[in-house]
């Protein structure tokens, strides 16, 4: 087979992609920045983050602190600049820039699933040696709140010892519930009379709640005639909004999404457990507001802050948006429910949060400035400031410090959930985008009534993902012939 050099082809393909971009609306990339000499001249440090996402924006808001620190500590004149894109467009923005070997962004706030896509073509710095030789980073590396931080935010292949990212923020799915309604004596009496057990009003009671029990609470508060609903979750086709929730249900119901060593999907994802989990998750819609079958994170926040739902299952990172002046005394944040499988209480959720990665195409000065920024970021003092502003820190020293859970109302649930027993991550593969699109299409089809069977949705997904992984050489097992007849 004929081959052409990868670098030449990359440049050429980006020229060709201008045609594709007519359909895609992708803006042309700016020219590579001039490399400043590492002198007293100001260093511009550019961070690409997630637009409209509080923890990402906090890093930028805290940048002046870093600029002052760098000046004092190293005599450096650094100026941090910001670029951002929403979740849905950030990957394209980052990847197209990196594919052109552009030093446009020094540090990129990535998502853990993108690590494979960025690391495989060597667009980002492998951090093992950097961490080993930088005492401040090395110290942080051994001080994460749980091993899941390393596996999720740093490694490619998943759970290997190849480190490509560092955690920008940790995050977990938590449950925002209406404390005022739970504390209401009349509600407590009616609930006990109806279901024979008391409404949980304390954190510890919620921490071990099962889905079956939780649904009784949701059904109790669900009152569509008054425009009030039991629950808000996520079913949007955008990005991974529905997937995060469905995969959490899969794990809790005892299923797996694939075999991450053999890359086998067919027969794993479309298991009876996963079919039951998906069916259960979609059935929650009967307690959710009209139109919730296309909802994403912002809808959950709107519904909760406008007093239209009793509970919202969404990210701890949206805590600052949930606790509006109107709601601050009415909400409680608790661990989301678990599910009993063979006598074992599974309370496993898809990990949120993001790592940040360093662009490999930087000059020495920019690279050093990027490392300086990260060294500053993992100072306990910085992490504590981040926490005070509403970000989710990942240093044990900060999270385990007395008083941490009192800083914000969601930190107790965050701390409780951010352990290996409660968190799992999904593929870090370079073809993650394709795998994600396939399952998002199938699962949202079920949620919106385009198809009517969880089995069909999971079988379609398994067929498509098996084919994708076969086509890209990750597995030598083709999807079975029966897949030809499985459509949405």
């Amino acid at each position, binding site marked *: 087979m004929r*081959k052409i050099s990868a670098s030449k082809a990359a440049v050429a393909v980006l020229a060709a992609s201008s045609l594709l971009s007519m*359909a895609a609306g992708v803006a042309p990339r700016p020219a590579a920045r001039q490399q400043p000499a590492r002198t007293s001249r100001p260093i511009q440090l550019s961070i690409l983050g997630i637009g409209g996402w509080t923890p990402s924006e906090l890093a930028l808001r805290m940048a002046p602190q870093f600029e002052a620190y760098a000046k004092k500590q190293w005599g450096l004149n650094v100026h941090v600049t910001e670029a951002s894109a929403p979740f849905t467009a950030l990957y394209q923005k980052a990847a197209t820039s990196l594919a052109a070997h552009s030093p446009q962004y020094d540090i990129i706030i990535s998502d853990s699933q993108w690590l494979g896509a960025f690391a495989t073509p060597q667009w980002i710095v492998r951090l093992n040696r950097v961490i080993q030789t930088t005492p401040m980073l090395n110290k942080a590396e051994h001080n994460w709140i749980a091993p899941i931080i390393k596996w999720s935010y740093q490694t490619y292949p998943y759970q290997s010892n190849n480190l490509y990212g560092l955690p920008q923020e940790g995050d977990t799915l938590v449950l925002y519930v209406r404390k005022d309604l739970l504390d209401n004596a009349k509600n407590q009496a009616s609930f006990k009379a109806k279901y024979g057990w008391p409404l949980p009003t304390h954190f510890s009671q919620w921490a071990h709640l099962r889905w079956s029990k939780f649904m009784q609470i949701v059904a109790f508060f669900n009152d569509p005639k008054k425009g009030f609903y039991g629950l808000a979750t996520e079913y949007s086709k955008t990005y991974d909004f529905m997937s995060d929730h469905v995969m959490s249900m899969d794990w809790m119901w005892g299923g797996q999404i694939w075999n991450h060593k053999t890359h086998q999907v067919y027969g794993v994802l479309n298991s009876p457990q996963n079919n039951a989990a998906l069916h259960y998750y979609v059935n929650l819609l009967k307690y959710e507001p*009209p139109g919730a079958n296309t909802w994403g994170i912002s809808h959950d926040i709107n519904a909760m802050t406008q007093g239209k739902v009793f509970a919202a299952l969404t990210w701890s990172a949206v805590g600052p948006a949930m606790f509006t002046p109107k709601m601050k005394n009415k909400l409680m944040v608790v661990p989301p429910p678990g599910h009993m499988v063979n006598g074992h209480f599974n309370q496993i959720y898809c990990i949120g949060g993001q790592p940040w990665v360093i662009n490999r195409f930087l000059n020495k000065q920019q690279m050093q400035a990027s490392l300086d920024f990260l060294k500053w970021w993992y100072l306990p003092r910085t992490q504590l400031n981040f926490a005070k502003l509403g970000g989710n820190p990942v240093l044990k020293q900060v999270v385990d410090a007395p008083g941490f859970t009192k800083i914000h109302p969601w930190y107790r649930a965050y701390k409780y959930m951010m352990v290996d027993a409660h968190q799992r991550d999904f593929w870090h593969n370079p073809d993650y985008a394709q795998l994600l699109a396939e399952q998002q299409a199938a699962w949202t089809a079920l949620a919106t009534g385009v198809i009517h069977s969880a089995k069909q949705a999971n079988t379609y997904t398994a067929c498509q993902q098996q084919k994708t992984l076969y086509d890209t050489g990750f597995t030598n097992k083709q999807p079975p012939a029966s897949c030809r007849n499985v459509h949405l």
Partner: protein
Amino acid sequence: MPPSVAPWWRRRLPPPLFAWLLVVPVLAFFAIWNIVPLLWMIGLSFYRYILTFGVNPVYVGLQNFSQILQDYNVWAHIGLTVLFVIGAVGVETLLGVLLGFAFWGQTTLPGRRLALTLLFSPMVLAPVAVGTFFRLIYDPMYGILPYYIHQFFGVPAPNLLGNGSTAFLSVLATDVWMWTPFMILMTIAALGAVPRAMLEASAVDRLSIPRRLRYVIWPHAKFILVLGVLLRTIDAFKTFGLVSAMTAGGPGNATQLISLTLYREAFDSFSMGSASALALFALFIAIAFTSIYLFVLNYQKREVAAE
């Protein structure tokens, strides 16, 4: 009047060469930004090349095309796109022609200019902005349309974009709202091409309206009108921003037009070889559409020539 004197270099240049010199910048621009990327895209369609895999492009011949031809989803998305094009362009043309006739000749109508300006404003808006607004308008909990449907008809507020059977029609209706003004504009332009003398003569001869349309208006207006339909067809085939903002191709794949599939292949999966093949395939379909229109447009001319 003294004769104009051209500069010395202009007088030394032979006219054809001067003409070429004027055209060269445009040709160079066209070659650099259109032809070269197009050729690269064609070349790339014969390679397997995924940017995120960090592997050299591998020549695979027609494999990308063969995979497209065998992919059920691609055909389903093309089918949906064709349906979208036929539905959108059909309704827009019908409404555009009717409204175009309504505005035709109404030069003394009070507020005509303002009405036309307001009428044309949707088509100058960015599709993503229109998509975002309509997503909010259609929202069953906060949107104004489901609210009024609920108020007037006493039925539950419909979930227009969250239902597999109504999402496609809702997106189509938004496209119609956005692009009908374009067809009004083309109709007004087309009717403006009809000689006033012929219209007056047809009125004097008391030609019936259908005959006036067929023998007087259509022969003069058809070129601009069909050009409008042609432009809308090509544009509708490329619809992306509107659908992306409204449904992201969902629910399920109910509004997954081929442009969204192409975008996903190129800028989510970064599979440049197969994306190029798919882009080429879509280009052939667009060319086929264009050819059909041109064939129909020239049909009568050919018949006359044959006689």
